[in-house]
């Protein structure tokens, strides 16, 4: 009879169940976190975050590719015609509208620095190809213009601009 009465009350067993479950959950969480986290980029990878690039030898119309964080970065010294084309594009025609001046450093319209990674599935686009004379991705057919903006194809966004700054007139630091 006393068993039935005890049902309504908090018993030692209830207490132990709650405490065991709580400690167990915290333990599992604490155990899983390092196992998940170990897969993220480690300290040595993060330490290689920035590089400096000398631009003095790049001629007008020329493009160089440098490797940054394992990915290619396109640095293009654009011709006047290419800059003009990029600036005159109608924003309404763009899939990911962005003005050309927001994609270069102020007063450095010549220099376009973009990640050479197609925003679709990560292939490296080919320079000077495609319908807009910027880049063309051979994997799934995305066309980028001379500002690295997506114009046609499956890629959802413009070529990404990495974080960079001019440390001198012809030297940039990426990252």
């Amino acid at each position, binding site marked *: 009879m006393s068993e039935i009465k005890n049902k309504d009350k908090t018993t030692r067993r209830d207490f132990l169940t709650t405490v065991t479950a709580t400690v167990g959950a915290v333990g599992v969480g604490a155990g899983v976190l390092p196992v998940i986290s170990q*897969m*993220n*980029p*480690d300290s040595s990878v993060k330490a290689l975050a920035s590089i400096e690039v000398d631009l003095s030898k790049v001629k007008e119309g020329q493009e160089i*590719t440098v490797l940054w*964080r*394992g990915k290619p970065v396109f640095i293009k010294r654009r011709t006047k015609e290419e800059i003009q084309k990029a600036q005159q594009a109608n924003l309404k025609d763009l899939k990911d509208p962005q003005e050309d001046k927001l994609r270069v450093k102020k007063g450095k319209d010549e220099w376009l620095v973009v990640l050479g990674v197609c925003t679709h599935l990560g292939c490296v686009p*080919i320079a000077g190809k495609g319908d807009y004379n910027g880049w063309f991705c051979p994997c799934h*057919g995305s066309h980028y213009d001379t500002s690295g903006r997506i114009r046609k194809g499956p890629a959802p966004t413009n070529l990404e601009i990495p974080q960079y700054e001019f440390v001198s007139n012809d030297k940039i630091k990426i990252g």
Partner: protein
Amino acid sequence: MNDQTSKTSKEHFEPVHTNKVGGSPFTGVTGWIDNRLPIIRMFRHEYLDFQVPKSLSYFWSFGGILTICLLLLIVTGISLGMHYKPDANQAFDSVEKIMRDVNFGWLIRYAHMNLASFFFIAVYLHIFRGLYYGSYKEPRELMWLLGIIIFFLMMATAFLGYTLPWGQMSYWGATVITNLFSAVPVVGKFIVTWLWGDYSVGDAALNRFYVLHWLIAFLIVGVVVFHVIALHIVGSNNPSGIEPKDTRDTVSFSPFTTSKDLLAMLVFLLIFVAVMMYAPNYLGHPDNYIPANPLVTPAHIVPEWYFLPFYAILRSIPDKLMGVVAMVSSIAVLGLLPWLDFSKVRSSVFRPIWKQCVFLFVLDFFVLMYIGGAPAEGIYLVIGRIGTAFWFAFFFILAPLVSIIEKPLPMPASIHEFEDWKKQGKIKTIKLFNK
């Protein structure tokens, strides 16, 4: 007296059996083992005395063929693992070392490479068998679902294995496939970085791909065990789609099915050996003999042939996220088939309309395979979109619609009657190898 009986019945306790030693039909050492670990009687029960429908065709040999392929993949894989180095600077060279220096390394690697392709050939025929003869229908739904899980795992492990030689196709295939996860809204970018352990595919990714390639291979073994256990509970389907009723309908698994399966395995392996010996690289891509270069994407990047139909579906959708969703669901949708097709008749032999639908589906599979290997532009893109639309229409429109409108042909009452009808030429079945 009465008093006593009531007292004893009150104190009556049910006996417990915590110890199940005994009951073996065997004697001696076999009996001693079997009494303690009943695998011997289980083996006899499931593989020697086991009754299967007598109408099974060679289409039912692919389960056994797949088991042999899986075993050979594991044996060759373990051998390769003893020489391969999962390091971005050493992987390509270690594979070349296997090809040139390791004793029989060329043979073991070519066998592993081509077995992967033949595993897919066999699995596609196995899935076709299931589609055509309605093997996914009640009560085999769970077995079918386990099969789809195996198929997903196969694709994962095949992809991971293909990245290991660290050639151009390995590298860019890995880049494209891992980037599929970047389509996930909000957290996509973090997932990809987490998968890579870096900001691009590199050494960290290769190392974990190697580990996961092994892990998933053994996960497949585990799910296959469930798949086979389920098979032994629900029993094999057969070309008639009718369940066996008495001994006139069945034969013993051994020696009848075993000898038939052995012949089929032999023929299959002979074809495999012929391809492996005379055209070992036919099913691969020459660009994968160029070491991985993160600065240059091959001009024409294609996955392995067995991924092409699904790759075509991915490319036929112009939106990144929807493309990925469509690709994954094009396979997952197979899992809904037991419920989308609710016709009571299993076998296409008696389903004149559904039979045509299945053949069209097979045609669609090959069309999409061709499109997946062609450039994503112009007419190819149009055909790819039609093919993708048909793929989903097959499941969501044709399957339920045909279930309703189709009038099945007259059916025999049993499997032995089915066999009689076949002899009399009343019905036609698909013949594979036999007269």
